């Protein structure tokens, strides 16, 4: 049996993996309804495979993935927590999964009720008055927030052009800034790993539309001056955006809407446990203050005077529409299922235990690796592999070595302000035993760096493929099977 064969390599003319009724008329007659110039010349060369062979193909592929139900996945800022099955069971109920988005609201009552309930819950968790569930990813949430800033300033007759972003920010922040036509001004974090109000005051002026701040930031440190920073930004007429990628750290403890932030996005696929799917679908709902509510993307789910839910398209100040319909409804169902089985108290305990687990790991690993920022961390923390690099072993090597132990490495080489960074986020769903195993593995790798560095630099040893030639993949670009 050859490994890694493509589905196309398994195709045999005449095999079928489906059953469908016959058409009443013949193919030629039916195709006669399409003018010749628009008819397909040759059939698309898609594979021909039976259902059992298809199943084997995909099951074999699935076995090559690491995933949260297989083992530890402490990928920083991605919040790889367990995804409860009741979420998926809820989303696959026929009344949800089979509902066409252009069904009149009067026949979509339960779905609207669920969305309205989720809007309430996210508002309650964040302290924001109004929520839009439409953005389908964190980056689209950022994009919406920046458009709201633009609309806000435009209405005041101001043309602002810049956004302040910390040097520890996720790459999507500056990319989103560019995609609305703004310019990024990067600001340095101080020795404590946070943004000092003075450095904001220094660059804040009337050309700045606003500031994006991740809190806690990607070092896992709470931006304790966020209120003062917001005041500085507001004093110059700017707006404050919170990147909510790290919301898992402070639910029930800190509400951005209460302390000077004007808007934020949620990553429902991180904080609210909707599955990451190998890279989506996500969901990037946004919350805003009541002052900014009128700019939210349309349609907006509202209640009419008879207390019935409906989508309001008549929103003259809206930034417009971001999605073909209402966003990733399937993720909304899952997030709602998650939140409502925890309740307000449980939500707070999520964050408490996420923070406890992160601090436990940090405390247990700080001797074996460099810890660039002291103090209590929030839900994640960053180690540096600098000490190991001096011995000729890079963070990348250690990450690859972790694969041999059946765990997924942390986020590496990010944030950019820490050399040889390893950004570790354990989440609250891991047991102490799992954390202890991870600590042992990390310590063993640190020992190997001292005693047998080649074990680490040659890793991984046990994966289905060894280190792959990424530069070669760019040089000899092969992104689809020709033929």
């Amino acid at each position: 049996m050859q490994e890694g064969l493509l589905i196309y390599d398994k195709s045999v003319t005449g095999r079928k993996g489906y059953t469908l009724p016959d058409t009443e008329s013949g193919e030629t007659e039916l195709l006669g309804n399409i003018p010749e110039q628009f008819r397909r010349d040759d059939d698309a060369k898609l594979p021909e495979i039976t259902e059992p062979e298809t199943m084997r193909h995909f099951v074999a592929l699935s076995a090559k993935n690491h995933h949260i139900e297989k083992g530890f996945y402490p990928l920083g800022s991605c919040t790889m927590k367990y995804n409860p099955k009741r979420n998926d069971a809820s989303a696959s109920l026929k009344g949800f999964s089979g509902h066409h988005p252009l069904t009149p609201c009067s026949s979509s009552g339960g779905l609207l009720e669920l969305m309205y309930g989720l809007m309430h819950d996210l508002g309650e968790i964040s302290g924001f008055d109004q929520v839009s569930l439409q953005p389908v990813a964190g980056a689209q949430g950022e994009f919406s927030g920046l458009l709201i800033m633009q609309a806000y300033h435009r209405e005041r007759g101001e043309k602002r052009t810049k956004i302040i972003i910390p040097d520890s920010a996720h790459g999507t922040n500056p990319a989103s800034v560019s995609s609305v036509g703004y310019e990024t001004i990067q600001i340095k974090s101080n020795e404590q790993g946070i943004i000092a109000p003075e450095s904001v005051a220094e660059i804040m002026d009337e050309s700045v539309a606003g500031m994006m701040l991740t809190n806690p930031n990607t070092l896992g440190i709470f931006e304790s001056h966020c209120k003062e920073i917001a005041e500085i930004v507001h004093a110059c007429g700017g707006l404050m955006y919170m990147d909510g990628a790290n919301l898992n750290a402070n639910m029930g403890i800190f509400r951005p809407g209460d302390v000077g932030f004007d808007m934020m996005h949620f990553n429902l696929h991180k904080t609210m446990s909707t599955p990451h799917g190998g890279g989506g679908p996500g969901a990037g709902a946004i919350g805003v203050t009541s002052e900014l509510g009128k700019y939210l993307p349309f349609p907006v789910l509202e209640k009419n005077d008879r207390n019935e839910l409906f989508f309001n398209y008549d929103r003259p100040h809206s930034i417009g529409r971001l999605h073909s319909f209402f966003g990733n409804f399937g993720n909304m169902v899952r997030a709602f299922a998650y939140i409502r089985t925890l309740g307000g108290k449980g939500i707070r305990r999520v964050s408490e235990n996420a923070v406890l687990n992160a601090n436990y790991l940090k405390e247990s690993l700080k001797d074996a690796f460099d810890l660039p920022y002291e103090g209590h961390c929030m839900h994640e923390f960053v180690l540096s592999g600098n000490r190991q690099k001096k011995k000729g072993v890079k963070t990348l090597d250690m990450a690859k070595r972790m694969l041999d132990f059946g765990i997924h490495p942390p986020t590496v080489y990010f944030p950019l302000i820490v050399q040889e960074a390893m950004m570790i986020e354990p989440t609250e769903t891991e047991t102490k035993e799992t954390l202890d195993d991870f600590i042992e593995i990390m310590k063993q790798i640190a020992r190997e760096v001292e005693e047998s560095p080649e074990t680490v630099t040659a890793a991984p040893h046990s994966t289905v493929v060894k280190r792959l030639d990424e530069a070669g993949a760019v040089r000899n670009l092969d992104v689809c099977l020709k033929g």
Partner: protein
Amino acid sequence: MPYISNTENDQKEMLAKIGVKSIEELFDNIPDELRHNQALNIPALSEMELMAEMERMAHDTSESLTCFAGGGVYDHYIPSAVGTIVNRPEFMTAYTPYQPEVAQGTLQVIYEFQTHICRLTGMDIANASMYDGASAAAEALALSMRITRRSRVIVAETVNPVYRQVIKTTLDGLGAEIVSLPISHGQCDLNKLEDLVDESTAAVLIAQPNFFGSFEDVNAVGEVAHKVGAKFVSIVDPVVQAITKAPGDYGADIVVGEAQPLGIPLSYGGPLLGFFAARQELARHMPGRIAGCTKDKEGKQGFVLTLQTREQHIRREKATSNICTNQALCATAASVYISLLGKEGLKQVALLSLEKAHQAVEQICALDGYSLYFDQPFVREVAIKTVRPAGEIVAALTKEGILPGIDAGRWYPQMKDCLVMALTEKRTAEDIERLVYSLKKIGVNDVVSQM
């Protein structure tokens, strides 16, 4: 607490290791004035109670509605095997393949998905997915603007109106001048197109077939666009594509669309699956993730994310797009669907849908007061001229358990008597009979009420 592992004893041991007395102390970086000191007002349910509540909400809909609506998403049959694969935790609970050695499953699926899309569209390169067809169309125009360094984009009014809304939102900040190309007999007006294109035109966007189900004269559109050096962007439907000309054969530079019809549930319009394909020369300007085939250090074939220097995590403010998390699990569903249906099956789905649509139209147009809105050929989606406002028909028939289509008047005020209907292989002769009966009844009522 079902999702949290730490017992009180665990917590005690961990706190001791950290050297603090309480979890509260770990939050000492959050100043008191920033604390939220009340309990969150959110009720907690057991799984059993939750599922009962979910069932109630899921059934407080017209679950049994027979669907004749399309508008970008379609009620096709999804083979059981698709759900079985997609629900495997190996695909569902992994994330972006940052460590390719332990993500070969996801990466190969993406590579195969890219191949399927290239083969359907006749293009050279496709990405791992976009949020939906609308955002893919917007990104195609943004790419055209970047690469031509021009700002004018021409968008046919025959393109799905919600796509045009998303395009407007997306291109707003980039200084785009979005020009609408009017409708003529259910197609975009080619004479007007000649007048509208100029040396500042970055792209011309049409859909084949368009929102009304009609075919555009794509060869002519492409020619006009290319004459001024503009990119020709075509929106296609992957199912219809099984029997209609590949955009690679009619000169499109970028092809985008909505792949929801390939095994993804309607799910009230999300998650969806945008796809994005282009000619080779645009490879290094594409938005989104792309999987590539390469070798490991022992010469074994493997897959990685490639051309990553286009992406936000490397290039930050200079990235080709801000997209990060996309719709990978939906692309997995589409890959399983295409693998099962294959070359013959996808064509069969298209042909069955076409046949049902033509059978329904024949019966509907035999009724008094109904006719084809445009005298144009169609595949499985079609505009019907109705005896009374389409909005009223949708409202009335929905109450009878039929979603008869989309009221075009919502977006085209001059077309209040236009119902856009879509049929799939799922609609039976009985479904069509019920629809025809209801349309007839509402027509008769109208005649009576006018007397």
